[in-house]
């Protein structure tokens, strides 16, 4: 069977900067892949190419056995790819529920008009937050009034609210307290149990080692390592990340 995601020879440049220079990357069905690398190695860029936020300058994208082209995140979300972005990408002026449903609001028809179904979204959003054991001081206040960790929780809730096939988390635990960070790892394991694939980007290598089935190392926009969990050790990873092993 073909992997769920297959990225081949992806190239992405920003003006003079070549962020990704011909990287391969794949995720199998129900697999958790750790993606590690130094600052600026191209991890976020590679994943944004996968979600359609960036258009690649070269390479091919395959999803669920088909060659795909994601023109924007609408397309990738429709295909079942969700992402917790490193900068979260929350609408600061909207409340958590509105953020969870942003771009996928529930509506109903009223007198020939399509209106937002606030009550339904509120209920479904609450249930989802409850399931994730996320507690927020208020669901009515705009996200800008939440703490960094609480906002991160909202971003995670948004990425898991809809039946996804692949959830990408870019530093999801960067500003979370120890207990909350552990919950994120648990959540990733739960996703895998439900057959949902996940990609975890993190600088906390121990976390990556804890949950990943396979670990991919990027170095200056190139894949320099692709290790099954059994072969991955802290030393090997660090060596690949800083570029000694090549």
């Amino acid at each position: 069977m073909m992997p769920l995601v297959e990225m081949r020879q992806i190239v992405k440049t920003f003006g003079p900067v070549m962020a990704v220079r011909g990287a391969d990357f794949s995720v199998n069905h129900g697999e958790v892949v750790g993606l590690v690398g130094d600052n600026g190695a191209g991890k976020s860029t590679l994943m944004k190419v996968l979600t359609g936020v960036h258009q690649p300058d070269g390479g091919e994208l395959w999803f669920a056995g088909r060659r795909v082209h994601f023109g924007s995140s609408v397309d990738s979300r429709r295909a079942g790819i969700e992402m917790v972005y490193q900068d979260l990408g929350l609408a600061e002026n909207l409340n958590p529920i509105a953020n969870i449903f942003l771009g996928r609001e529930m509506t109903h028809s009223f007198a020939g008009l399509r209106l937002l179904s606030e009550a339904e979204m509120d209920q479904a959003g609450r249930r989802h937050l409850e399931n994730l054991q996320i507690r927020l001081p208020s669901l009515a206040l705009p996200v800008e009034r939440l703490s960094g960790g609480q906002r991160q929780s909202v971003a995670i809730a948004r990425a898991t609210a809809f039946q996804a096939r692949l959830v990408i988390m870019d530093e999801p635990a960067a500003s979370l307290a120890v207990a909350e960070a552990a919950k994120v790892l648990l959540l990733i394991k739960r996703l895998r149990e439900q057959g949902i694939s996940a990609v975890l980007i993190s600088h906390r290598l121990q976390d990556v080692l804890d949950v990943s089935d396979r670990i991919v190392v990027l170095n200056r926009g190139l894949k320099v390592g692709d290790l099954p969990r059994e072969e991955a050790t802290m030393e090997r990873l660090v060596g690949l990340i800083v570029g000694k092993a090549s």
Partner: protein
Amino acid sequence: MQIEQATPTERPRLRLSADLLGRMGLGLVVLLMMTVLTILQPQYFPTRENLTNIARQVSSNAVLALGEFVVVVTAGIDLSVGSVMGLSMIVVAMSLHAGWMSGFALLAALAVGTGVGLFNGLALTKLHLPHPFIATLATLNIARGATYLLSGGVPISGLTPTVRFFGAGEVHLFGEGALALTFPVSFLIVMALYSLVWLFMSKTRTGRHIYAIGGSPKAAQYAGINTNRNLVLVYAVSGAMAGVAGILLAGRVNSGYPTAGTGAELDAIAAVIIGGASFFGGRGSAVGVFLGAIIMGLLRNGLNLMNVSVFWQQVLIGLIILLAVYVDVLRRRAMRLED
């Protein structure tokens, strides 16, 4: 399960009160101004004639402000609305004088307004002009120049009853008896447009997306919202509103004159800011902007009644803008401190 059922009743109330506080502040200002004016000018201010006059006078600015508001929510600005209002007014007058039926003249004015708005939106999104300030500053000048060119610089007076009806007409509600209420048609149009825009901005997906774009363009992009399409829409709405404002003004003064609406964009922006919208985008409501426009109208009317010169009026409007924004700053700070 139990938690789920217990919370929903409690949270929406919280949202309501935070919202209400902001709006009530403006509502209280309106009430206060009306009370003060009634005390100061008991024989002139609270008369039906004067109140009807205020309603008619604020109409054009209120409609301009409504369009401007939708743009400001996206963290944009539309400087062209005053000129577009003038252009729309001249288009109405000229097409009527060319023998067009009133309906077509009105449609032409609306189309011109919407067209300039579309151009603004496309210049911003397709030509990638760095800031809406640029595109709309350009159309401010183009539309004003076109207005002078079309009219030859001279006023055109004498319009049809239909057009005058929209700007100067009245409707009688609740019969002829003691409860009879006479309402300027233009103000009814204002209220209808505000209701529509409120519904659009607060209760539809597109409205929600417009708020998201203003609050965080990146969030909108990640959520797959088509930012450019929404921006074009927003500027088109603003242009269309300026078209309506031109029609109302033409009907009110029964003419079209090429200087009409000069500087009106600043009054519109003032109403939007007094009404609680933020230049940083993502904030404000149609209700607030409505009150902002009313506050400006009451201020002008009251100062006129008290024979305060227009020069002082301008100074006062400036002070009110400062005050309104400062009060908002204080309110936000208080909200932050409370938890």
